[in-house]
């Protein structure tokens, strides 16, 4: 009950955000957070629930952006372009999954990394198709049902709608028997096999789901900037998405969303003061992995508790001594 209430309250706050954020700069940041949160949620299906850490998700994300931008440039309508982009992303996801799911763990990470680099290489080098490093412009944002999304507020609300659909889908997915069996393949793949589950198929379907959501995020990424360049597919983008997932805490729904908010805000704050975002990104990455592998929120709690325990122990020692 409280859970539903919190959820409704959160939706209410998010939906009215443009009303009490007067400055459209902040509304744009909120849109960005939602877009990246979708990508982080997509990656979390694999990294969190399936225990398969992918470093190629930026490839799928950027694939959707490029496919949509290219088909609009080729004269397709926005709806057709979006549908084509998602279909193309799903097709790429199938290839990703077929090749990478032959293994797990580190090999899985390496294969997804290599596959992501192929897509990056195509975006970067196949200049006659993708315009290389200069990227592709989208003439305008789509206008579903004739509503223009050009204003930051309208775009934010459209992104929020997509985000809520994704979050709801994730909720259902996590609570479903399929979600439970996916966690089973993460924790006890052998036992799952012995119990008669098709471990490979479960992982494959989870990968498809993850790829589709990454594609949706990629579409909104394109609509936000009205531009896409090879950077969207780079290893740095994959790493950022992974940082969002692990900084918030893997295998939870709220974790990747909090992580996305954290990383996007940090990126904006950091870039206002220093131009060394990559240095900051790398340092945070190393620090989180070394000191708070379970994620920032649980990690902070643990450190705080440890500090309090140490203080109490010291106080007790002083009392005795």
């Amino acid at each position, binding site marked *: 009950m409280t859970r539903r209430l919190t959820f409704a309250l959160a939706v209410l706050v998010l939906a009215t955000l443009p009303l009490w954020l007067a400055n459209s700069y902040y509304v744009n940041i909120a849109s960005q957070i939602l877009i990246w949160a979708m990508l982080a949620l997509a990656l979390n299906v694999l990294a969190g629930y399936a225990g398969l*850490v992918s*470093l190629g998700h930026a490839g799928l994300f950027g694939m959707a952006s490029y496919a949509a931008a290219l088909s609009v440039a080729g004269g397709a309508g926005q709806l057709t372009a979006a549908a084509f982009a998602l279909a193309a992303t799903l097709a790429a996801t199938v290839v990703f999954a077929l*090749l990478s799911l*032959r*293994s797990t*763990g*580190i*090999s899985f*990470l*390496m*294969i997804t*990394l*290599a*596959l992501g*680099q*192929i897509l990056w*290489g*195509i975006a*970067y*080098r*196949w*200049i*006659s*198709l993708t315009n290389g490093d200069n990227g592709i412009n989208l003439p305008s944002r789509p206008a579903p049902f004739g509503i223009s999304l050009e204003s930051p507020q309208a775009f934010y609300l459209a992104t929020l709608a997509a985000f809520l659909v994704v979050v709801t889908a994730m909720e259902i997915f996590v609570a479903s028997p399929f979600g439970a069996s996916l966690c089973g393949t993460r924790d006890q793949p052998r036992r799952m096999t012995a119990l008669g589950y098709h471990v490979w198929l479960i992982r494959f379907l989870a990968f498809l789901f993850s790829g589709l959501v990454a594609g949706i995020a990629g579409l909104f990424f394109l609509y936000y900037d009205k531009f896409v360049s090879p950077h969207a597919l*780079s*290893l*740095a983008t994959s*790493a950022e998405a*992974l940082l969002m997932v*692990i900084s918030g805490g893997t295998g939870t729904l709220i974790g990747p969303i909090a992580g996305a908010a954290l990383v996007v805000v940090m990126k904006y704050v950091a870039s206002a003061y220093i131009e*060394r975002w*990559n*240095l900051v*990104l*790398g*340092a*945070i*990455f*190393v620090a989180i*992995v*070394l000191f708070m*592998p379970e994620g920032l929120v649980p990690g902070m709690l643990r450190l705080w508790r440890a500090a309090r325990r140490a203080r109490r122990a010291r106080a007790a020692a002083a009392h005795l001594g």
Partner: protein
Amino acid sequence: MTLWLLLAINSITLGGLLFLLSAGFSLIFGLMRIPNLTHGSFFMLGAYLGVSFLDAGLGFWTAALASAVAMATIGGLIERLLLRRLQGNALAQVLVTLGLSFMIADICLMIWTGDPVQIVTPPALRGVVPIASVVFPAYRLAIALIAVVIAGMLWLMLDRTRLGAMIRAGVDDAPMARVVGIRVGWLFSIIFCLGAGLAGIGGVMGAPILSVYPGLDSDMLPLALIVVILGGTGSLVGAFVGSFVVGFLYNFGQALFPELAYVILFLPMLAVLVIRPQGLFGRQA
């Protein structure tokens, strides 16, 4: 005809450089079971350090050696101070190397700026060598030769010395090697120093051809990755053969299908993954 020959020479040169890069990468992977994602950064940082050593007045080969020593030290420190704390948690180790690669890239950008730097070819090797009525650029031949010599030395070390036997034991079965009294932890440090040093020397030697620029790290790392997937992890022969295969694929791909060079590079890797996942020279896990 001359075009093909030129391409072949370039391929051999790139293969030699790739071997210097991926020999260490492969040994680290074989022993520690992690892809060291800072390896491309070692190559780039080594090259940049070489630039600075040359500016300080050192000769080319002294600069290359100094850079190798500096990189070995940095690699050893990373292994001792960071990776060791995460022993047994391979995923965390990989993520740390990924974070470090971003940091190194940005630090290089800060110190050496974004402009590409070219190291001049050492004067003694600027000429050409005529072999059977064909002339070869001396420096490119020298690179291939040095790579072969280093490969030979590495092979001798791995195959004929006590240290090499311990490394091979660690690659085959680390827990069992520990049981028979081999200090596998020390091997990790040695291999990491060796790998970083080789990458550094490769970076300096590659600089007159490839030049040094931001992004060199992320250009080289996928190549090392392909070499190791092709050749099999922890296998020196695999790294050697894989390096030259990738060298040829890269140069010929770029000349024949410039737009799809990257795809051509990855296709054999995918084929190997599907047909022989342990790599051409890897052993069944």
